């Protein structure tokens, strides 16, 4: 058994993992830090390895029973308290564990009205976060790679806190290929860019209400009920009220930075 603490956004997690090797692998995403004994972790997780079979992109089945919420995807199973602060995760392997953690954490932050996880990469330029959203293949990872050596906050799942004073993009542990830069700090977003690969660079503004509709498909969230699903809309409203949205047409080089950071 291996225990470590980590932080995602404002939340401290305590993770008890039955596999020392899996715990060590998870720590490349979820950096451990010394626990403060006086501070109760916000989330307590127990992780067991060896469940089910390897990832096949099956849909997540969600059942609410006896005050618990159960997610099952075949390669992971989550049994969570209704507030998502305590959960047992049975996972097949490291990939399953990462996905299960993202499923759980996204549910918690929506439930608490804390923020959203967006299917987007995000990069820091002069102290502001630039968020690049798009479907698979749109160029999120490409843009992240082209933006080097700028600090990377996320290459696939951008974590956005929606606080009383506005939106903040936080370093995200939910990465696909490249982890968040160790020196990246949370910062306010300059804009959200909806990506299109093109033959020339162009940026056009998107009306806020249309921006909200577009961003709906990029929210990482698996609602366990209709009531839960409704929580996403007010969060997106807070986001688009605070952050401008643009269409970004870009060539496969870093020239788009001259356009968006001017």
């Amino acid at each position, binding site marked *: 058994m291996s225990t470590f603490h980590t932080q995602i956004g404002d939340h401290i997690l305590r993770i008890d993992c039955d596999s020392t090797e899996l715990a060590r692998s998870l720590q490349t995403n979820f950096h451990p830090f010394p626990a403060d004994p006086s501070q109760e972790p916000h989330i307590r997780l127990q992780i067991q390895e060896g469940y089910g079979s390897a990832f096949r992109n099956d849909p997540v089945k969600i059942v609410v029973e006896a005050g618990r919420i159960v997610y099952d995807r075949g390669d992971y199973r989550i049994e969570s308290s209704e507030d998502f602060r305590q959960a047992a995760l049975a996972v097949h392997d490291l990939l399953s564990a990462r996905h299960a953690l993202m499923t759980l954490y996204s549910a918690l932050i929506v439930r608490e009205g804390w923020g959203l996880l967006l299917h987007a990469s995000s990069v820091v330029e002069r102290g502001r976060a630039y968020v690049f959203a798009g479907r698979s293949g749109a160029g999120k990872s490409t843009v992240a790679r082209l933006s080097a050596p700028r600090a990377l906050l996320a290459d696939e799942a951008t974590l956005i806190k929606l606080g009383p004073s506005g939106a903040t993009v936080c370093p995200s542990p939910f990465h696909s290929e490249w982890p968040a830069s160790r020196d990246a700090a949370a910062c306010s977003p300059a804009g959200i860019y909806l990506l299109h690969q093109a033959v020339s660079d162009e940026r056009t503004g998107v009306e*806020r209400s249309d921006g*909200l*509709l577009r961003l709906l498909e990029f929210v990482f969230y698996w609602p366990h009920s209709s*009531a839960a699903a*409704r929580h996403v*809309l007010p969060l997106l*409203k807070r986001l688009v009220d605070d952050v401008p949205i643009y269409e970004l047409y870009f060539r496969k080089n870093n020239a788009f930075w001259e356009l968006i950071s001017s």
Partner: protein
Amino acid sequence: MTTQYVREPGLETVQVDENWIILNTDDYTVTKLNDVGGYCWGLLQVPYSLEALAAKVRADYDSAGEAVQEELERFLAELTRLGLVRHAG
């Protein structure tokens, strides 16, 4: 008896600038209304007949003529089709 219309319960609505966005989580559809549509949506928290709704729109938007009622009839038919309003009572 005059047909009255009212919002379906349990829908999430937000206003963004002059527009209104309604999320129907029964079928996960999203509907966007302009400012007049949003105004009507606000009224439909309680039952309204087509005629009463048209009278309110004419008064508050300084509009005249039968076109208002015809457009509202189409609007209400569309909202009904989308599962956002129903016949009341």
